[in-house]
């Protein structure tokens, strides 16, 4: 029997209020049964054999207040780097959105509001670590080294945007939700078998936690104690499906209990908390102590993709409330207090970001169309005879795919 004591979380981490309702199996569905068993004198009908707690980490609140005792040790330069990556991410994101609206880009999945979750976590990765994104990780990907041009190239419908540069140990975007999870576990397993002291990080959304692949991937990671970190960006929506329709569990972090390893919920708009949790989990993985599930509680400020219109299914007020928790804003406030941010610095960062993004757009738009041969070329290491024939007929333009 599992009893849940729920503790309500209010915006500020210091205001934690214990709900008095100890929700037990019996009390919830049959107070009578409980009472009668009490009358019989059976004070505790069943024996507790395991207890679990789910913890929450927030370091930098939405007003920029920071719990310095918890703050990860980062140099001023590093804090500025975090800020700069977040600004670059947002600049690229906004540009991609605009390009799509102008018809210069295909469907695009914005990460607006999720910059801290992506930058904070990817910043904790080593180049030798491996990363398996879902489809909404532009921020993490460019931090890992992907030329921003390739983000645009991918979303413009060109596979070459998925040709991750040699040396960058990242997988391309995965569209089928959650299916990257067992693959990431497999890479972690390979690293472990090889004795490589690296970690693997894979990104997933709240929606992905409903898919069998999530379960199976985390289960394998637990059983084989694999060096992998499951970074869940709980942005509270899966297209139009709210979190409450995705799971009845109060947190996603607690799902780790099913697999016998650690889970933690962090404020996903707090770049320090994300970075700290990710760093600890990655170090633990590299040291051979197994997997971790990190739930970054955040919010998808934009539509699901440029093909979506979220106003049909969610309230503007909800979005507004979350805008106030903006991850860049709060870091800025913190930095300003610390003397690490001023308008001139910001201008310089913003300009650099804009220039980088504009250069990426130019670069991408100058790329000639892909060679149609590419449709065939990469199907196998060596083209089988029949496929070679299909390609040759196609190139001869006689429209005859075979023969």
């Amino acid at each position, binding site marked *: 029997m599992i009893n849940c004591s729920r503790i309500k979380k209010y915006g500020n981490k210091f205001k934690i209020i214990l709900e008095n309702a100890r929700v037990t199996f019996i009390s919830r569905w049959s107070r009578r049964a409980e009472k009668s068993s009490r009358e019989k004198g059976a004070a505790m009908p069943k024996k507790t054999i395991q207890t679990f707690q789910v913890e929450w980490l927030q370091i930098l609140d939405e007003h920029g207040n920071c719990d310095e005792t918890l703050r990860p040790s980062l140099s001023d330069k590093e804090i500025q780097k975090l800020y700069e990556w977040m600004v670059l991410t947002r600049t690229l994101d906004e540009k991609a959105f605009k390009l799509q609206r102008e018809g210069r880009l*295909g*469907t695009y999945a914005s990460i607006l509001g999720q910059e801290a979750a992506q930058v904070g976590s990817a910043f904790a990765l080593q180049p030798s670590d491996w990363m398996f994104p879902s*489809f909404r990780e532009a921020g993490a990907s460019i931090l890992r080294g992907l030329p921003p041009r390739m983000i645009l190239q991918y*979303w*413009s*419908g*060109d*596979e070459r945007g998925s040709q991750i540069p040699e040396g960058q140990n990242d997988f391309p975007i995965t*569209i*089928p*939700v*959650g299916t990257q999870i067992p693959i990431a576990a497999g890479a972690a397993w390979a690293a472990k078998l090889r004795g490589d002291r690296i970690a693997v990080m894979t990104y997933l959304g709240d*929606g*992905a936690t*409903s*898919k*069998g692949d999530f379960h199976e991937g985390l289960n394998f990671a637990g059983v084989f104690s694999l060096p992998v970190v499951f970074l869940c960006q709980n942005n509270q929506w*899966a*297209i*139009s*499906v709210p979190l409450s*329709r*995705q*799971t009845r569990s109060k947190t996603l972090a607690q799902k780790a209990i099913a697999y016998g390893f650690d889970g933690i919920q962090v404020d996903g708009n707090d770049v320090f908390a994300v970075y700290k949790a990710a760093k600890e989990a990655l170090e633990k993985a590299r040291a051979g102590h197994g997997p971790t599930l990190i739930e970054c509680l955040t919010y998808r400020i934009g539509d699901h993709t440029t*093909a*979506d219109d979220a106003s*049909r*299914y969610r309230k503007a007020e909800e979005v507004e409330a979350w805008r106030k928790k903006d991850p860049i804003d709060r870091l800025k406030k913190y930095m300003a207090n610390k003397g690490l941010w001023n308008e001139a610095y910001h201008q310089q960062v913003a300009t650099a970001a804009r220039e980088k993004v504009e250069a990426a757009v130019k670069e991408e738009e100058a790329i000639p*169309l*892909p060679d*149609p041969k*590419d*449709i*065939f070329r990469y*199907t196998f290491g060596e083209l089988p005879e*029949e*496929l070679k024939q*299909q*390609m040759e007929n*196609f190139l001869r333009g*006689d*429209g*005859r*795919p*075979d023969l």
Partner: protein
Amino acid sequence: MAKLTMVEAINLALKQEMERDPAVVVLGEDVGKSGGVFRVTQGLFERFGDGRVVDTPLSESAIVGVSIGMAAYGFRPVAEIQFEGFVYGAMEQLISHASRIRTRSRGRYHCPLVVRMPYGGGIRAPEHHSESNEALLVHTPGLKVVAPSTPYEAKGLLVSAVRDPDPVIFMEPKRVYRAIKEEVPEEEYSIPLGQCRIATEGKDVTLIAWGAMLQPTLKAAALMGERGIGSEVIDLRTLSPLDDDTIIESVKKTKRAVIIHEAPRTCGLGAELIARINEKALLYLEAPVERVTGFDTVMPLPKLEQHYLPNAERVVEAIDRVLSF
């Protein structure tokens, strides 16, 4: 009579069937409040409520799995797989259970389930959003597979699918969703499963297509018509079970055939059609049956997809080949 898009026609069929039969429920990802990513279920949530139009957690396998249980209990679920490229996760439930529960239980249980899914390319969508895998489903005994080509067809076939006592995979050509409008009666009508439609009659060549491929096929037929060549265009409609008779009769008449599909060529449904023509009309053939299909490669992303998808020009070339063989 109102001119409707295929999206509107399907929506109308769903609405009317739900009104007619309280056992019909709609479930899937984003089918509720949002009305579906293609708006096919728009308005149903408001009309029938959360009990009959249900947004589910993200899991194709469970969407089909729970639907089987609901069907066994007496409901007629209409499940949506958001894109056909995500149906693979549900293959085990479809192949091992939906298609088999009737025969496994020797008729004690059956599975009146419709699985709707938009399929096919041509809308410049990301990877996995343009697949055409009808052959996988046609190869599965115990499933029926339907692919309408126009709004009128879609409404009539969906009504039959919903009323069918067995699982029907309803493949909706997303490229057609809003591309054509057609007069669609508000009144109830249905188109029986298992029968092809002769879209245009002709005596020189039989063209067999379904779903979104009807449009380029008809265009090719029109181009050939200008050159005095009569094409008999067969809209397959039901991909399983196949309506051999209509096909064989046509081929016996025209003595030449071209099959058009988006799916990869090898082991596609085109192969089965050729096999049946071979078996039942070999001596009538004046030329090998031609296939105009996708390649045996992964469907490319938008920048290359036009090279992959059959178009009227490729169909015309194939007709020329069968005529000049």
